[in-house]
Each structure stands twice: as structure tokens, then as C-alpha cells.
């Protein structure tokens, strides 16, 4: 190629970099052959401890992932394609996104679903910004009982300028204080764009979403639900309780925990808000011969077309994770999904009984699905002692809620369909031993 270009060194092609700015040699570890690289990476992977009996959830859950899911997402035709800009040769990606939208619409009861956001937290933040855009208001109310990280990210996204986020307190039963919500909606801190509650909330407790939605709507605010998708197989849906937007983490739908990502930010809304939703949308259409086909649509909301007026800056998203979720839902089916949700609930009740019996009772009275908080004296030390015995006893809450006395000795624990009765027994027995 050098010859064809009439040059004798590739250096010629880099002469546009000012001499003063040319880099010195990079100081990086030596290149490895694939054999050596594989050994290095195996060794790193084996240094992680993933063999404990884990009761840790808190927004990310260990679910069984059918083998079919990995077979599909490992297909090069899917994972080495990019954004389907050329629909004629991208019907695979386009149809799976359309199917994803349809499945999540069915699950959430909200008809308009975007093709994916970075994660549940970013989707929540985008939902808040969406409420701001849709209402022209600048204030968001969010329950303190949505995941801490989601609150953090939403606050980061809202920035420091004109937008503001106020937290709503929870009562001793673990449920968001709706009286406080009512007061906040009427306060003179400014009209509220959106109210955000989680279902189940960050303590695993179930909220009165219908009531909260009613209060929000009466004040002209949008109601935003932060959901966990598998729970929607059995819990009332955002569509049913009148949410305007729902956001959530799609990780439970066939995506491994992998220390934080890639995950799947779910974002869904009503027909009325369709043109406000950020991110990709795929729609059905026809080709010149009348064949059904799929295409990216309502593109005028996106950054590459609208630039500074776009609904969001999102470009690369989490499409392959959406494909994993689509494959997961197609494989597990409606009955399977209900079984997953209900079996997790059943195991969690076993867990509650077992822990209570050894002196670790629940903290909150509110009902729960598959995750709840227990009180354990010296929670942090007990947690460490259990770790040493091969048990990951959920999340110590003091670190995340340092100012909350009720939670200072709290552990947030969960069960899923992968939790065995044997693990529960061992947890309880070991806890008794450690606390003694």
C-alpha cells in the first residue's frame, strides 16, 4: 500500500501531528501471545471469589440463565454488527429490538419502550429529565427508598444548575411516606415535574404505587416507577397503577452480574409521551414490495440528527443486552417467568423464617417479594464472619444509610429461584453460630 501511495514510510502520514506534540514511546506491559493472555485472564478470573452462598441482591440478582441465551448472544452476526443504519441488511437486529420493545411493553403495561439505556440508574435519570422536559418544571421528588446509586446518578444527571431533586422519607414500615409526598408536592419549593418511587423499593418493601401516582397526578406531576422486571410477572404493572414512565434495571432478564455491567436500562412510557422518550425506537413498516420490515423511527429525537436539541445524547446503547433479555423472555415464557418470581418469593419466605428463628428478625413490617431487611447485632462484623465461612450475607446497610439508626444493624438479603433450601439452612445455622 505504501507503494501505491508513493511513500516509503508510514511516518509521512503522521506529519500532520505537530512535531512538539508527537508522543514518546508508550510505557505499557509487553505484548502477550494468545496463550499467555489466556493464562493471565484465567488467573485474574480465578482470583475473584464467586463460590460463596450469596444472599446479595440490592438491585442485581443471580437468576438462572437458560443456555439458549448465551448461544444466541454469542452469534457474531448479532454481536459484531452495529446500529442498524442500513435496515435492508439489519433486519435481524431491528426485529429483535422491536420484539424487545413489545415484550417490555407487555411486562410493564406501558406501550412505548426505548431500545435500551446504559443501566437502571441512567434510565431513572433519563426519566427524570424526561419529566422535566414534558412538564417544563424543574423539581423532582424521589423516594429515599430507591436504590442509593440510582439517586446518586439521577442527581449527577440533573446537574447543579436549575434542576433540583428532593428526597422523600420512608416510614418505619419501610414504605415511602405518602403524607410527606403530599406536603412536598404542595411546598413552595416549586412545582414538581416528576415523582419517583421504586417497586419493590430498595428495602425490598412493596409501595402503594396507586396512591402515590394519584397524588403526583393531582399535582400535575408525572409519576415515575422504578421497577424490577421479573417482579412484574406477579406484581401490579406501571400501566395498571398509572405510571407515566417506568425505568428499571433489566439485568435479571438473562444478564450475568459481571461486577456491574453491561446491563440494560429499561425505559417505557405512555403514548402521550412517545415523542419525549430518549433513545432508539424501532417501528414496523413495509418495503417497496410490501413486505413487512422494521426500521429505526422517530429519529428526529436523536443526537445525530438533532444535535443540541436532541432528547438525550445517547448514541451507543446496550442493544446486545436487550437481545439477551428478549431471548431470555422468549425462552422462559410467561409461565416460567411467573415461576421464577414466585419461587424467589417462596424461598425468601423460607429465608425470613430461618433467620427469624436464629434471632435475625425483619426490620420492616411492609410486605415484600423476594428481598427484605433483617436486624443483626453488629451487622458489619457478622457479615465479615459469615464471609469467612463462605456466605455472602447480603448487603450491610449502614454503609449506604449512615444516618439511619433503624438500619445501622441492618442487612438486606434476598433469595431467588437459584437459592436452595440447603443454602438457607446453612446461612441460618452459621449465623446462629457466629452471633453466639
Amino acid at each position, binding site marked *: *500500500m505504501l507503494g501505491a501511495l508513493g511513500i516509503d514510510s*508510514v511516518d*509521512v502520514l*503522521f506529519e500532520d501531528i505537530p512535531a512538539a506534540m508527537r*508522543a514518546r514511546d*508508550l510505557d*505499557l506491559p509487553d*505484548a502477550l501471545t*494468545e496463550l499467555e493472555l489466556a493464562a493471565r*485472564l484465567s488467573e*485474574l*478470573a480465578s482470583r*475473584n471469589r464467586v463460590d460463596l452462598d450469596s444472599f446479595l441482591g440490592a438491585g*442485581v440478582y443471580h437468576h438462572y440463565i437458560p443456555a439458549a441465551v448465551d448461544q444466541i448472544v454469542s*452469534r457474531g*452476526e448479532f*454481536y459484531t*454488527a*452495529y446500529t442498524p443504519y*442500513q*435496515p*435492508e*441488511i439489519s433486519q*435481524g437486529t431491528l426485529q429483535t429490538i422491536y420484539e424487545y*420493545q*413489545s415484550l417490555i411493553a*407487555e*411486562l410493564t403495561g406501558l406501550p412505548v419502550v426505548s431500545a435500551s439505556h*446504559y443501566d*437502571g440508574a441512567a434510565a431513572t435519570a433519563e426519566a427524570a429529565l424526561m419529566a422535566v422536559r414534558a412538564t417544563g418544571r424543574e423539581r423532582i421528588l424521589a423516594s429515599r427508598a430507591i436504590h442509593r*446509586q440510582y439517586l446518586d446518578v439521577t442527581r*449527577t444527571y440533573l*446537574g*447543579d444548575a436549575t434542576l433540583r431533586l428532593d428526597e422523600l422519607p420512608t416510614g418505619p414500615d419501610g414504605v415511602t411516606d405518602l403524607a410527606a409526598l403530599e406536603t412536598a408536592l404542595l411546598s413552595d419549593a416549586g412545582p414538581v415535574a416528576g415523582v419517583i418511587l421504586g417497586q419493590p423499593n430498595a428495602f425490598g418493601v412493596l409501595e402503594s404505587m396507586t396512591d402515590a401516582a394519584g397524588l403526583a397526578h393531582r399535582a400535575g406531576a408525572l409519576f415515575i416507577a422504578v421497577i424490577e422486571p421479573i417482579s412484574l*410477572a*406477579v406484581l*401490579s404493572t406501571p400501566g*395498571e397503577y398509572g405510571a407515566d414512565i417506568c425505568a428499571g*434495571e433489566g439485568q435479571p432478564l438473562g444478564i450475568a*452480574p459481571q461486577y*456491574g*455491567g453491561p446491563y440494560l436500562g429499561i425505559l417505557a412510557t405512555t403514548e402521550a409521551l412517545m415523542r419525549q422518550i430518549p433513545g432508539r*425506537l424501532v417501528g414496523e*413498516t413495509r*418495503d417497496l414490495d410490501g*413486505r*413487512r*420490515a422494521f426500521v429505526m423511527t422517530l429519529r428526529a429525537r436523536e443526537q445525530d440528527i438533532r444535535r443540541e436539541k436532541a432528547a438525550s*445524547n*445517547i448514541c*451507543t*446503547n446496550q*442493544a*446486545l443486552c436487550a437481545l439477551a433479555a428478549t431471548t431470555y423472555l*422468549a425462552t422462559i415464557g*410467561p409461565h416460567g417467568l411467573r*415461576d421464577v418470581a*414466585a419461587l424467589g418469593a417462596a424461598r425468601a419466605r423460607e429465608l425470613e423464617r430461618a433467620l427469624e428463628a436464629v434471632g435475625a428478625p425483619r426490620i420492616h413490617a411492609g*410486605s415484600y417479594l423476594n428481598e427484605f431487611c433483617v436486624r443483626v447485632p453488629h451487622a458489619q462484623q457478622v457479615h465479615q464472619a459469615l464471609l469467612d465461612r463462605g456466605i455472602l450475607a447480603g448487603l450491610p446497610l449502614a*454503609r449506604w444509610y449512615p444516618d439511619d439508626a433503624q438500619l445501622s444493624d441492618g442487612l438486606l438479603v434476598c433469595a431467588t429461584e437459584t437459592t436452595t433450601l440447603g443454602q438457607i439452612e446453612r446461612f441460618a445455622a452459621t449465623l446462629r453460630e457466629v452471633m453466639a
Partner: protein
Amino acid sequence: MTIDAPPAATARGAGPALQPTLAELSRPGRGGGKVPHPPSDALDGIPTELRRASPLGLPELNEPAVIRHFVNLSQLNYSVDAGFYPLGSCTMKFNPKVNEWAARLHGFTQLHPLSPDQLAQGTLELMFDLQSELAEIGGMTAVSLQPAAGAQGELTGILMIRAYHQARGDDDRRDVIVPDSSHGTNPATASMAGARTVTVRSAPDGGVDLEVLRRALGPTTAAVMLTNPSTLGLFERRIEALLEAVHQAGALAYMDGANMNAVLGRFRPGDAGFDVMHLNLHKTFSTPHGGGGPGAGPVACADRLAAYLPGPLVVRDEAGYRLERPGERPTAIGRVRAYQGNVGVLVRAYAYLRAHGAAGLREVSEDAVLAANYLRARIGEGYQLPFGGPCKHEFVASASALRRDTGVRTLDVAKRLIDHGFHPPTIYFPLIVDECLLIEPTETESVDTLDAFAEAMLAIAREAYEDPDRVKAAPSSAPVRRLDEASAARQPRLRWSSAR
């Protein structure tokens, strides 16, 4: 239920057939066998009013139907694994398979993001090393691996710049300047961060017009965002003067490093004076694009901004590696992700880095730039090249003469490329070039492939003169012909109807 797709029968032999949707394939009673049934009282603890009232209308399929559906759909896709994909600005290079293997190792995938540090030493070490190596590549001090994509990296960087100005009491700096050639995420990011976007016109050579920029700079300028090499594939030749002007105005310089594939080991933005940048791991470091994502857009910054990087970073102390604790770096702008980032993507990028080393990375850029210049010369035989060379990793061509002479537009050329077996380049972007084609071959393509692509492009140009209607009717050999995008937008049908 009607299935609009042609029956599977007519098409498989002839290549992949369009497929019915999952809903259309659903049959009551299919599926099951994946998880045990729960006891019947499993949900007794949930008050009725909190339970789902509407039926759960998900499709019912068995595994054979699911697999066949997605295998067939996959074959409707064009992909890097199957062919040349010169989508400009996207760096569709080959994705080494050992990286996929690594990212699927049990020890990596099963690690919960809230695991105590002591359980996560393998991934933490990997992230720590990756932070350091990316900092070295960028000539920067510190790196956050949190951002999930380039756009989120940009948002992170602009928020950091805002925090920096505010910490200095410089509250009025709310403008972000971007050239009109910039990637759409740049202005969109500025708006999202609550800034005012100021767009400056490019000079005729494709670079920033220094005079225009100088006029735009002022006491309200928070930052200038510069894509370098630019989306035109050009290294910003006036970069020294430009950075000087930015800093003299009290503003900071953000570099959109999505195009670093062109200058690895040749140019370190930190050395040059940029204050903060992002890298697109899914471009430069070969993590696959996933049909739209996931990627990762780590942010690297110079010393003066390190305090503002979102937490938690990975740090090392006596006990090993750990995440920063909440509040440990109080000036941090806060999280931009729930957890530590797209770790599965980071594993792949780390593998890529370790496979290459310093010399290998430099070679990557040399080969990418060489391929682009070679292809540029060949394409120039039949298309306009609006800007002088050399280019970096990609180049802009234009079908303006073709359009003028034959009525065949860039869109038609792109569609006709499909019939020739290639994925079209990026078209009509950057917006500032007439009948634009943005072509990025990457370093992983052979000269045979580049030649075949060039021949196809030139053949289409000839065909445009001889038989323009044929070009305008393209593609004729894809699974579908051109789509009615207008009515898709007019009456959006974004899901199947739930009554099955």
C-alpha cells in the same frame, strides 16, 4: 393471526428469509422446563391489590422455536464477522475471539457488583491496570472506567469541567463550543449538562477556523469540545494555537477521543494540553458493537480535573485493590453509573491492550491510517475528495458530481453497495459535506478487501452513468428492498398488539 413475512418456505435456499415475530410463533402451552414450579402458596404474602391484574401476554415458545427464530434473524444481519463494514466514525474493526472467551469466564461473570472488595481482587486488579494503561495512552493522570459509552463519557467530562469552574467560583462559564463538524453527541451532551451550545463553522480545509473560534471564546466559555482526529478524518493541524486560545480564555479543552484509533502511540492528548477526554473502547480497543452496544467510554483527565472524576475509582493499598469508599473523594461529581461500569466490556479491552503492547498499538494506528489513505486514493478515482490528504483513520468522499450528472445520490450508492456484498459507509455525516460518504476501513482489513470495495464503488459510479435507475432501485438482493420510513414515523407501530 396473519404472518406478513413470506412463508419460510420460499426463501431459505435463496438466503435468509424474513421471520414471523415471537408473538406470531406463540402457541398456548408451549415452553416450560427451565425452572422448578413454586409451591402454590408462594405469593400468599402479597396483598391482592399489589398483584398483577392483567394477563401476562408473553409469547409461549419452546426452545427449538426460540433458537430457530434467532438463528434465522441473525442471518438477516450484516456483521463484521461476515464481511467488510466500513462505517465511518464507528471503527468496525475485527473483534478478537479470545476477548469474548475471557469476558465469559465464570469468575468474571458471576461477580456481584456490590461484592466486598476482598472477593473481587481479580476484576479490581484488571480495572486498576486498565485505568493506568488508558491514562498512559492518553497522556493523562487519572481515569474513570464508569461511563458506558462515548456520549456518557462526554457528559462526565463536561460535568467535571463545570465542577472545576465552580470550585474556582467561575460560575458563569456555561457555554460549550463545538465545531460544526463535531459528532452529534458533543452538542447533545452540552445541552444535557445544562450548558449552552455554541457551534463554530469549520475552515475550508476541514479544520477549526481559528478566527471564528477566537471570537466565540470568552468569559462564559466553559469548554471547547474537539474531536481529534475530526469526523472528517483529519488531524487538527492548528491544534497548538487552538489549545493556547482556549486556555488563554480561561476555558478548558475537552477532546472527543473516539477516533484515537488513528493516533495510538503517536499523539497523547494530555501531552498536547487537553484537560479531559474520553476513549471509545468499542472502537479503538475492539470490543464488539453488539448491534448498537454495549460499549464503554472511559474518561481520562489531567491532574487539575482528577478530583472531579466520578467515583468510585479503583485504588490500591496494602490490603490489595479496592473501590473508593463513599465520600472518600468529596469533590467527585458523583456517580454516572449504578456500579463500576461495563465491566464485561472492560475485560475485552484489557485483553486487547495486553495482546498488543506499546509497539502493537502503534502498529494498529499505522495500519489503520495506511489503509484509509490507500482506500482514499482508490475511491478518489471516481468520487470527489473535498479535503486534502493525508487523512487519518477515515476519510470523506462525496458523490456530488454523480448527483449532478446522473441524479444518483449518495444514498443510492450506499444501497447499491449492498448488492455488491458490502456494508455501506456512513452517509450524510458529517452534515457539513454535500452528498457525504464517511469511509473507515480499519486496520484489520486486507488490501484484497480494500481493492474489492474500491472496485465496487467505482463500478457503481460507472453504472450511475450507464443505468442510473438500476442504482436507484438498489438494493435488489437484500432480504428486503428500501423501506417506507416516512409512514413508519407518521404512524409509529412500536410493538405488536398485545391481544394475541
